[in-house]
């Protein structure tokens, strides 16, 4: 038969074969679209509570990393700006309610706190990038924002102290608390930022961070209801 001859000559005479001569056999069946298996990659169908909780858990995880600052890359790898925004708004709200009369001899306004924190962070980030740093813009903002957390905790403590006591004792307690948290903030942020700079410029990058947290600490310490 011609098919035997063609089998002995591979790839020969293919043009001579006409399609109806070749029997086609097989099974064609479409896979059933199983929506249950694809949920790992698509989060559109999950409940809203799960979505919010996932982000909150990530933010809380980073808070823990700030509390125990060791060389970890969680803040740098999965940066987000929710934490800094939360902390900034909390701190600015807590700094309101000082100075009973509303003339401008009082403490910082909400907008002033916001501007100082965000523009201060942006300027420090630009400074470290101009000096040749390797962190990206938003990673730096993330680190600086998260490290405000000890100072926010100090603000809460200060308000509690001001409700209970007043005078020299309360001032001494507030001074100790604010100084400790300012040192903690600076130490935590330099633990993340200093590694990204060449060693001969580390002092130039650390000093603006020190100044930034010093000014925030000053705002907290001078809060007087």
């Amino acid at each position, binding site marked *: 038969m011609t098919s035997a001859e063609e089998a002995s000559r591979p790839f020969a005479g293919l043009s001579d074969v006409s399609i109806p001569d070749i029997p086609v056999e097989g099974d064609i069946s479409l896979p059933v679209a199983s929506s249950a298996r694809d949920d790992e990659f698509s989060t559109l169908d999950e409940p809203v509570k799960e979505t919010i909780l996932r982000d909150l858990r990530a933010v809380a995880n980073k808070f823990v990393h700030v509390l125990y600052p060791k060389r970890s890359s969680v803040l740098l790898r999965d940066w987000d700006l929710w934490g800094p925004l939360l902390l900034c708004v909390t701190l600015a709200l807590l700094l309101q309610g*000082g100075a009973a009369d509303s003339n401008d001899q009082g403490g*910082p*306004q909400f907008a*002033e706190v916001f501007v100082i924190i965000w523009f201060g962070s942006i300027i420090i980030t630009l400074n470290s990038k*101009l000096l040749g740093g390797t962190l990206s813009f938003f990673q730096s903002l993330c680190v600086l924002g998260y490290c405000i957390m000890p100072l926010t905790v100090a603000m809460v403590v200060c308000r509690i102290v001001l409700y209970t006591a007043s005078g020299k004792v309360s001032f001494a307690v507030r001074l100790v608390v604010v100084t400790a948290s300012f040192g903690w903030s600076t130490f935590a942020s330099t633990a993340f930022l200093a590694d990204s700079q060449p060693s*001969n410029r580390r002092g130039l990058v650390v000093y*603006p961070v020190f*100044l930034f947290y*010093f000014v925030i600490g000053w705002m907290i310490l001078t809060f007087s209801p």
Partner: protein
Amino acid sequence: MASPNDLQFQEFEEAAELLSADPGAPTLSISPSNIPTLTAGEDVKLDLSEDEEAQEESSELLQGHKPGGGFWTFEYYQSLFNVDTVQVLDRVKGSVMPLPGRNFIKHYLRSNPDLYGPFWICVTLVFSVAISGNLSTFFSQMGNSSYHYRPQFHRVTIAAVVIFMYAWLVPIGLWAFLTWRQGTERQMGAYSFLETVCVYGYSLFIFIPTSILWTIPFEWLQWTLIVVAMVISGSVLVLTFWPVVRDDTRAMAVGTVVTIILLHMLLAVGCKLYFFQTTVNTPPSAPTPTTPELLTTVKLH
């Protein structure tokens, strides 16, 4: 084989052009015709030593780098931050201890002006003046039982406006004026804009510890501190700008230096009087934070 030789030949041409331009500057600045116009003998010695330094430094100035890229690129600003911690500390030390014969720009900047120092010194000065002013008000009113402590945070805004305007507008004006005067005489001695901003920024450093010491509530101490700070800061500026204006007519040279010192004094005295008021009951009657306004308030006193 022809192209490498051509390139070499072009390099020599450029170097020859530079070398022909370079002897022009030193010879103009030590022209003997200037010596008879100087009256004091020590001035002659000072100027000669400065010119020797200028001759030594001019070869280093040739190797100075131009900021890369246009001013809209990131690399341009990165080249303005090309300093190490040690260099910044060195420049700060030079601004605090001005020695005669050490031109700040030629000795410390060496054609590598940076913007890190002026910017962060201005920011620190803003906060130190505002915080120390607040503290001094608090200390002076401690015995007053009717006094309720106020943080006076609006002072930070005012201090920021005043100090940044001084640190940018005065160098712009001075640089434009010097370039205009130099332009008519085709000399190479004028400083670039960045160097002028840089020297003004570093000269403000002495006011940071001064403002912290101003919290001590003794008037005589405060005025002594102002005088000391003015002498140090002013001499940095005078030592830097005198060699450039000296070649001009006598009246213009003296006038320029006097204006520099006067503006500096206005800033120091204005800051002291506004931020370190010892009376709390007289709120500042909305003075606009421009130095001419402060000048009129000082004159009225």
